[in-house]
């Protein structure tokens, strides 16, 4: 282990962490409005293939990102229709979305498998900052999409905690009937929240195929959408804590193959389980705490809202 290998690890920790953070933020927004969306994995896959296709076709990562967001958003609207507008079961609809999304992405991307690298999200022009020792490559040389993820995280916190829009969204997620009585459209709020979640999952897919996997192939998401879902729970539905969790989980993803090159002989299979073990641990802690004080989860999560059913 030396400076090069440690810096290499930290670069990956931040990149993987912020890719997870994009997807987790989207899920957090949807869940704050009371909609559990287990379709993250599928939306990421569809976003990933859309980004690869459009990024290559138009030679621009920006266009790739936009198309990926649109693709993820459109897919999430299926969930919004079934689980919000029609009041179907959120778990079933979300799982179906993952299965459908993975299949759709595999089908749409079958001609792009193993094609050469596509345009990537580059670093910001930060000049000499990028040359700094350790902090340069680890922080300032990250892609602009990584910075964008941080900005989105701050924006999400601000909107949720400091604006009336956020207040309304949280109200819908805590007690839909109360929010409805107060004049909030529950359905409209939830559809928008799910849609934004889909867009962000699409962004995460673009990050994955353009910058991390550097190519499209079936199965490229490899369960990372599920890690994002777990991350929201781990982060207690708060953007800040979720960011910390993202770096931790991203760290585990990045550490998995590198431990061996550090001479630490732990099975990578064991390391890949750790995010879920941590999430289960946190769930246990939350469950014990919730006996004494209110649960940290949005109270109306997973429950469809129908006006006449009180």
């Amino acid at each position, binding site marked *: 282990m030396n400076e090069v290998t440690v810096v290499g690890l930290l670069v990956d920790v931040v990149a993987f962490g912020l890719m997870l953070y994009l997807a987790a933020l989207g899920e957090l927004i949807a869940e704050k409005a009371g909609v559990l969306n287990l379709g993250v994995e599928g939306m990421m896959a569809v976003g990933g293939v859309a980004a690869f296709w459009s990024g290559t076709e138009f030679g621009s990562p920006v266009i790739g990102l936009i198309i990926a967001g649109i693709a993820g958003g459109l897919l999430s609207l299926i969930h919004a229709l079934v689980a919000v507008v029609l009041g179907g079961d959120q778990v079933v609809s979300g799982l179906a979305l993952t299965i459908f999304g993975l299949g759709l992405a595999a089908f749409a991307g079958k001609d792009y498998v193993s094609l050469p690298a596509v345009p990537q999200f580059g670093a910001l022009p930060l000049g000499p900052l990028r040359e700094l020792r350790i902090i340069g490559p680890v922080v300032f040389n990250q892609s602009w999409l990584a910075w964008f993820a941080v900005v989105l995280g701050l924006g999400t916190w601000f909107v949720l905690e400091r604006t009336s829009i956020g207040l309304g969204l949280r109200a819908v997620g805590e007690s839909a009937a109360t929010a409805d009585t107060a004049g909030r459209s529950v359905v409209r709020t939830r559809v928008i929240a799910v849609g934004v979640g889909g867009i962000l999952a699409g962004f995460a897919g673009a990050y994955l195929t353009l910058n991390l996997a550097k190519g499209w192939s079936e199965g490229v998401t490899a369960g990372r959408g599920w890690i994002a879902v777990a991350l929201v729970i781990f982060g207690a539905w708060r953007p800040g804590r979720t960011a910390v969790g993202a770096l931790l989980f991203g760290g585990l*993803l990045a550490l998995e193959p590198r431990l061996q090159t550090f001479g630490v*002989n732990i*099975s990578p299979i064991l390391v890949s389980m750790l995010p879920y073990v941590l999430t289960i641990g946190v769930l246990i802690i939350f469950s014990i705490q919730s006996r004494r004080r209110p649960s940290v989860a949005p109270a109306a999560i997973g429950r469809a809202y129908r006006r006449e059913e009180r």
Partner: protein
Amino acid sequence: MTRTLRTLTALIATLGLLAAACGGSDDAGGSDTKAAFVMVAPVGDAGWNFMHNEGRLAAEAATGVETAFVEAIPEGGAEFDTAVQQFIDDGYTVIFSTSFGYMDATEKFANENPDVVFEHISGFKMNDTNFGNTFGRMYQPRYIAGMAAGAATETNKIGYVAAFPIPEVIRGINAFTLGAQRVNPDVEVEVAWTATWFDPTVEGNTAQALLDAGADVLTMHQDSTATGQAATDAGATFIGYHSDMSSQVDAYLTAPVWDWGDRYADVINAAANGEYTPESWWGGMADGVVDIEIPTSSPVASEMQAVKDQIIAGEFDVFEGEILTQSGDVMVADGEKMDDGSMLGMSDFVAGVIGSTDG
């Protein structure tokens, strides 16, 4: 979840097959031998399944026998049974099952359908009449690939991104290392396990870890080209696997590759003539089932060619003593050659490999 997805895929594939069979029945004529292939993943992956499909097409061209295939059929599932039964019902007389995990299901079908020839790839089971197995001595071109890598490295460190610590993979790593040491006694081969056959993100990440650890030449035993991408981005050299990846990877130097066409054609012809005899066929470079292109830019190109000729002529064995293990024990004694059984069960690294076989 993936299972459901694959069930759907298999269903669609089976329907497609049915449609294809119905549509194709008009122009079918002449020989009544038809060959079908069952693949575990999509054939567009530049890896294992891609090369089996290339072999299928080559065999079709060589024999004139009609062939068909289904892809993305999971191991150990009902989809395999459905697909194979459909092929049998459609009159296919030779069936190749091209993934290790199909072995037991293939055996079952072979015993129930004595008139159909079953050839399983990469397994070890067979019967006396209509069920044999085929594999290739990939360690031979791996050794020669190791020579190219040993000559190309300046840091004397080669990174090896590897899937799982099973004998097939360990054998390849050992052969590669012995080849590298032949031209460069100071070279070390560092192995990092990914615990996946196919995950481009993890493969690329692992490759980067090896580059950071000082490797300037990378190779892999995986199904994607992600290791090659990482090598290209870092200005390192890449030795591929499975197929010629020169069009996908800039850093590509050469690769040990599969070439199943001749073997498939032989099996199909034998079946057509009623001369098929099951065997455990483990072919080498002499049979053409594995190969490597000698990169003319390599400083050891002529030596590589000489070794290739020796292996093909049967004058040189990769696992010829004395070979020591990582811990200094004798793996193959001086003057001896390792037998096939020991090679198929290889579980120790040779000296010069950094890493553990524990995975």
